[in-house]
């Protein structure tokens, strides 16, 4: 079922017409990358990148790394579908970088800094497109809530165990700031059922997705885990006894500027006001007459 794939690699390959794909995920080794032009936007340092790299490496070394790829397998065609809706006939080259596996539409490292997007934008040819997919704010909310409640009841307080996610508004801003044109961001939810909370956490670890933000607590008490598992099951279980976990995916598409593309008009160049929207039929027929 799963395509055997090597570890992370850069793929350059010509694509059949009608399949758009210029997509970049990233791996954390890019900490040494220097931007052309010498720009150095200050990126938020939320995540311990060394730890994330170790987690990803560990996950890749496990005996069966591919059995945790089901989420990527699910996201990949969905992102491709969105890209396919774009009206562009032909892409000659596809850059397909992924975290751990060379699929199109990879989960980006959640710490999406300006650096990454600027670099992507720089690499694209004019009229190139960037299609990305990443986890959204509602991802794993069941796990987050269960842990929070259990930790509060057992220990009197709680610390975050699920990483912070980029908000969907910020995504649009980030893409715009990086210079992309004609942005599209939309969201999708994938629900995966697990036998229980422990199996979910085991899978997350297998995907290399364990928590690595700096403010994580070093230790999760066994009692708290037990409590959280009980709460998770009670609050969220399905009819057949399994528990669901929600992965919310944000898909984003951004185009690199090209003359042929539509672009926002200059400020102050409006000839009609929004207030006249109600009379749009008249306006359009007037325009036709005058042409």
């Amino acid at each position, binding site marked *: 079922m799963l395509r055997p794939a090597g570890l992370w690699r850069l793929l350059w390959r010509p694509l059949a017409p009608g399949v758009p794909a210029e997509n970049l995920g990233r791996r954390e080794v890019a900490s040494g990358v220097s931007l052309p032009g010498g720009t150095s936007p200050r990126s938020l340092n939320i995540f311990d990148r060394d730890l994330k790299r170790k987690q990803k490496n*560990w996950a890749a070394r496990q005996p069966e790394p591919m059995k945790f790829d089901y989420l990527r397998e699910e996201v990949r065609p969905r992102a491709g579908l969105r890209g396919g809706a774009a009206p562009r006939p032909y892409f000659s080259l596809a850059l397909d970088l992924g975290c751990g596996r060379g699929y199109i539409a990879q989960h980006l490292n959640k710490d999406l800094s300006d650096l990454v997007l600027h670099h992507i934008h720089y690499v694209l040819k004019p009229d190139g497109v960037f299609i990305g997919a990443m986890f959204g704010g509602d991802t794993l909310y069941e796990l987050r809530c269960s842990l929070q*409640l*259990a930790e*509060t*009841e*057992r*220990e*009197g307080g709680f610390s975050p165990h699920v990483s912070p996610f980029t908000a969907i508004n910020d995504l649009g801003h980030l893409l715009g700031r990086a210079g992309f044109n004609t942005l599209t961001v939309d969201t999708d939810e994938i629900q995966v059922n697990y*036998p*229980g909370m*422990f*199996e979910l956490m*085991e899978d997350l670890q297998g995907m290399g997705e364990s928590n690595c933000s700096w403010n994580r607590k070093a230790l999760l008490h066994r*009692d708290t*885990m*037990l*409590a959280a*598992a*009980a*709460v*998770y*099951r*009670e*609050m969220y279980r399905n009819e057949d006894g399994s528990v669901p976990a929600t992965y919310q995916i944000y898909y984003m598409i951004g185009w690199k500027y090209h003359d042929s593309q539509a672009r926002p008009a200059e400020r102050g160049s409006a000839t009609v006001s929004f207030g006249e929207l109600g009379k749009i039929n008249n306006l359009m027929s007037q325009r036709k007459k005058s042409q």
Partner: protein
Amino acid sequence: MSANRAVWGRVRSRLRAFPEHLAACGPEAAAYGRCVQASTAPGGRLSKDLCAREFEALRSCFAAAAKKTPKGGC
């Protein structure tokens, strides 16, 4: 993880048996879960040890289940 493989291996094997032991304590787990969930209702307040009694029941059931199954494997 690099320090002591034996300890790490034992800990992980114990963790892997968690779901099994938890499954043996369905009613206790449900009772605890309900108690916590009730505190999330409007007007409720979740404080430390609010459901301590239910949790103790769950914990002792869990420990009993762990003792029953032989600690082997891995």
